[in-house]
């Protein structure tokens, strides 16, 4: 079976792929370069810029902070988001339509505006600790992802299943954990991964909410770039990419990426 494929279609496809993959290849190449400045194609091959990340104290600390903030904000968003998504779907008919939109607002507002207002009205106004402000900001921006993804898997959940369990003598809260959660497990995993990636890659919120003694990896990367132009920048980028790819691979293995595209 052969099909006629228009040469322009092939050319277009190649261009799109180059556009998508090209920058990644350049960054990866630059990270592996043996030179002391950013260059592509790489001159000589070396892993020393990756070693360099872990030798610079600030990077070591911020990797840890980033992972910590990403994990904590994701957990907080799940604790708030799962019950919220449940309520929004369970009582969809009784609740006003704009309510679910309300929970998506943090991604609709430009993150810079959100970050700035959090700085002004939370960090400055109440003099709240930097770590808590940063955690709060991250929880806020990942919450919409959690609610969206969990809602998507709850949309296909038949709530009479829950009623069946209750009628058989299972109290409502227990039913939530034994019947509802296992059936939206894939949604919870997907929400976790999306939220985690969003938090660990975030710049716009973090740039306002980090401060003396506390920074995240992307922010540290920006600071480093202002002073040095060595391939460390590229190798940190590769590290972030690898982290994201690892996480996506887990999603792919458990659910398939098509799930996220929905």
């Amino acid at each position: 079976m052969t099909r006629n494929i228009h040469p322009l279609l092939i050319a277009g496809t190649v261009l799109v792929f180059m556009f998508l993959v090209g920058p990644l290849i350049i960054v990866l190449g630059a990270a592996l370069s043996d030179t002391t400045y950013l260059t592509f194609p790489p001159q000589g091959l070396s892993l020393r810029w990756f070693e360099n990340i872990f030798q610079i104290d600030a990077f070591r600390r911020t990797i840890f902070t980033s992972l910590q903030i990403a994990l904590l904000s994701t957990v907080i968003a799940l604790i708030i988001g799962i019950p919220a998504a449940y309520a929004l779907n369970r009582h969809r008919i009784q609740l006003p339509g704009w309510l679910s939109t309300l929970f998506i607002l943090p991604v609709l507002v430009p993150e810079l505006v959100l970050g700035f207002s959090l700085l002004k009205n939370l960090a400055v106004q109440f003099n709240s600790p930097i770590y808590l402000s940063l955690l709060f900001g991250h929880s806020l921006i990942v919450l919409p992802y959690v609610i969206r993804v969990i809602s998507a898997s709850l949309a296909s959940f038949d709530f009479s299943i829950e009623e069946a369990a209750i009628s058989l003598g299972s109290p409502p809260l227990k039913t939530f954990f034994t019947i509802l959660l296992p059936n939206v497990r894939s949604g919870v995993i997907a929400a976790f991964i999306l939220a985690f990636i969003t938090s660990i890659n975030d710049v716009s919120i973090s740039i306002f909410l980090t401060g003396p003694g506390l920074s995240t990896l992307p922010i540290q990367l920006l600071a480093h770039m202002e002073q040095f132009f060595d391939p460390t920048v590229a190798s940190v980028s590769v590290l972030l990419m690898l982290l994201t790819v690892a996480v996506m691979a887990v999603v792919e293995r458990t659910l398939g990426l098509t799930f996220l595209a929905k």
Partner: protein
Amino acid sequence: MTQSLTLDSISAHYGSTQVLENLSLAVGEGELVSLLGASGCGKTTTLRLVAGFLQPTSGTITLGGRDLTRLPPHQRDIGLVFQNYALFPHLSVADNVGFGLKQRGISGDAKTKRVGAMLDRVGLAHLADRLPAALSGGQKQRVALARALVIEPPLLMFDEPLSNLDAKLRIDMRVEIRQLQRANGTTSVYVTHDQEEAFSISDRVAIMHAGRIMQLDTPEILYQRPANAFVARFVGFENLIAMKVVERDGAKITAEMAGGIRLTLPLEQFGAIPDSFILACRADGLQVTDNAAMEGIPATLGLRTYLGRAYQYQAETPAGALIANGPLTRPLDAGVTAKLVPVPEQCTILAPEAV
């Protein structure tokens, strides 16, 4: 084990809309009562009130003398069978059936034995380890039935359990449901919009409309002697004719309808006939004849349709449009003038009301 269910003056609202109005219903021990009606009549609301998923605005619900009205649903001990089966997708057939036992603290051998025995009874023992997704519709409904029965509830409730099955399976399953219900002697409430289904398996049927029970009786009485115009129409009395008695003569009466048309009706068939009444006839209860000498309702015939056992005519009469049947041996064409002769066995008398 089995207990009687009583609903006493139940009213229920969704927001400001009243969905049940002062509804009372008593289901005897071991009895199967169907709630029958079109969607929006309040039958599912009634079931959900008894299950505890909705709260009545007033009235009480008792099961075997136990007041259920304010009891949370998980403490009511009622077996529920849902229209869409509502099986737990992540649990095997055996775990689905064993779920209620687990909630009652029954585990290990005792649980395995009861689940096994129940699966045997519904003929699914060989599928115990399957997940619900691997079952057919009929098998799913059997699992749902087994899951509700295994806890030996004092009350079983069915919410349109057969609506998602095809016609043939529906008939098999309803017989199976009735047999299991009879064998266990479990008091049951069965919600459906399918008249044939309700009539075929119920001890009594409550025909519901606009949040009220229009009539609660055995299928036989409902079918032959509806109590009011709504039920009469519901069970297929297509023709409702308002009449007034003009003469009483021993075993017969003569009554007049609109247009001054008179009919003679035998009292023995209808019992007492009030001075003003409604004559309700199925299409079979009005025989079409072109014999002008017969006593009947003069009519101009309209569209004729073929029913297999008879021809059916849309007829224009002085008493309005009526539907009547005529013999296959003598098809009559549209526009023909004929007589519609009431067959007392296929007719009934209703008290007058706004028809």
